């Protein structure tokens, strides 16, 4: 099989139950809170950490298979790794660092190839600098060049942008995106930054306590999480508990739609049809921010008839050009509904703390999930 496939399992000292695949040219982001085992998984792929059980295979070549007793030493695995701290060799120049990963190449070619790689990451002219004489962003580029110098079959990036400033990070995103087009290999990116993951990755794997909870495109994972736990990990805050009332065909404005009806705290919600749930099933449901539509004072909003919900604005927090609003839904619902609006819209409609407001929850955005543990 082309690409990388990983299945890891162990109970202690770091619990692992992770499985995923990454095709050549694909960027897979492992996301999760710190301590979720993301870095350990990369180390398992590179061979610098040995898990209790599992397999790691790249392009049909088995690097690790606990059951068959296969465990290739890290230097025998063609994995290019960019460490969180970059881990550049402080006593070597930038060029020396890159050439240090070229033991497999003929001696005569190393210098020229190392220069070419440094040129590729826009460091031409800085070949003779030592890491201490380079900025954080430049060090990161040397680390990337060094990882590529190995002619890796898989590229592993461990929080590669965590110690550079925001402006540098934006530039590096663009460069990494360009590099992945130039090299067709599986790229596994570890990050705790969901926006970064969504921007750079084709697919996300959400991890918690060493376990892969869900893998899918950024859109899938952030709008259709498999569980309330995933929803929480991808920062979806509007997770509520309900019970499935039944399925229905509705005819809204001459448009036939398949719906699942959910009873929620005395209200009946129309949700996009999910045949996996049967009437009477307990469920959790989530609605991403973009599907919460506030009713305007001046004119009707899109989808205003869908699931109108009235509440009191508990908080309105201005963040940049937007306002984050928390809508208190009254007794019976412990946590508020969150949504954001452009600041001028909030102002014009009087969305301020203490004000009453009505919003519509668009049926197409409501996603049903199994009930969160301890409920239902």
């Amino acid at each position: 099989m082309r690409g990388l496939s990983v299945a890891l399992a162990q109970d202690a000292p770091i619990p692992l139950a992770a499985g995923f695949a990454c095709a050549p040219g694909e960027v897979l982001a492992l996301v999760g809170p710190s301590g979720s085992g993301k870095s350990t998984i990369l180390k398992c792929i590179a061979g610098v950490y040995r898990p209790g059980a599992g397999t790691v295979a790249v392009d049909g070549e088995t690097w690790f298979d606990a059951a068959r007793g296969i465990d290739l030493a890290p230097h025998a695995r063609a994995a290019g790794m960019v460490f969180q701290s970059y881990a550049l060799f402080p006593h070597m120049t930038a060029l020396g660092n890159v050439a240090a990963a070229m033991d497999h190449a003929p001696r005569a070619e190393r210098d020229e190839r190392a220069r070419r790689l440094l040129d590729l990451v826009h460091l031409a002219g800085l070949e003779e600098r030592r890491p201490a004489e380079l900025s954080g962003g430049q060090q990161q580029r040397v680390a990337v060049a060094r990882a590529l110098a190995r002619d890796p079959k898989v590229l592993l990036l461990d929080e590669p942008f965590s110690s550079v400033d925001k402006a540098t990070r934006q530039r590096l995103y663009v460069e990494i995106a360009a590099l992945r087009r130039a090299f067709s290999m599986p790229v596994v990116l570890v990050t705790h930054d969901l926006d970064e993951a969504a921007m750079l990755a084709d697919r996300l794997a959400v991890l918690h306590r060493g376990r892969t909870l869900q893998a899918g495109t950024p859109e899938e994972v952030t709008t259709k999480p498999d569980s309330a736990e995933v929803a929480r990990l991808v920062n979806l805050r509007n997770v509520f508990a309900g019970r499935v009332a039944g399925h229905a065909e509705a005819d809204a404005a001459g448009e036939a739609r398949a719906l699942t009806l959910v009873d929620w705290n005395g209200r009946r919600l129309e949700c996009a049809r999910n045949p996996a749930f049967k009437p009477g099933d307990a469920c959790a449901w989530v609605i991403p921010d973009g599907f919460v539509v506030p009713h305007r004072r001046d004119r009707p909003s899109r989808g205003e008839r869908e699931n109108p919900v009235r509440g009191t604005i508990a908080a309105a927090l201005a963040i940049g050009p937007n306002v984050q609003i928390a809508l208190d839904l009254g007794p019976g619902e412990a946590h508020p509904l969150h949504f954001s609006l452009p600041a001028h819209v909030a102002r014009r409609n009087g969305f301020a703390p203490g004000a009453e407001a009505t919003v519509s929850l668009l049926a197409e955005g409501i996603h049903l999930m199994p009930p969160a543990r301890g409920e239902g």
Partner: protein
Amino acid sequence: MDWTALRLSIELGALTVLFLLPVGILAGRALAYRDFPGKGLVEALIALPLVLPPTVLGFYLLVALGAASPLGQAWQAAVGRPLVFSFEGLVLASVLFNLPFAIQPMQRGFEAIPAELRAAAACCGMTPWRAFARVELPLAWPGVLTAMVLSFAHTMGEFGIVLMVGGSVPGETRTAAIAIYDRVQAFDDAAAGRMSAALLAVSLAAIALSYAFSRRIGRRLG
């Protein structure tokens, strides 16, 4: 001025360092990177010469290397002369009592290398041997250098153990430190003073050189 004694001291110091260099690197690296049962005990044993009175260590060495011991008998059979009160015996004793001075700074030197850096060496495709030669040793070098200088300077100055194991055989075991003692016993203060000054100069030069090198390496590693 007893040039023979000074030369003997320098030879003893140099040979001690030569033997301790591989021992210290291997042991220091193993103690820095490996965990094994009884590691604490091993570290305590290595550190023992730091706190043990030299005469106590000297006494045990005298017994262990003496004509009645298996080692002493084996040496006598192979070389034809006793191990104690010989230069070779002195070198062996010197290597043993300098173990902490060699191993501890090297261990600290290897410990100071971040684990990620060693992982990076492996991820760069370096075999363990290449990683040792190209990454670990150059980075642990300040510790290795400190260890060599300390062992050398300490050997130059050691008195109690040398006296116990080697006695004071001219040209064989009478080191500069012993010669100074001899001169003082003979009320030859002028000769003792010259010898002391020479020993002081050699020790100071060794320490100063090591500091200068460490600083240079420190700057290089940034």
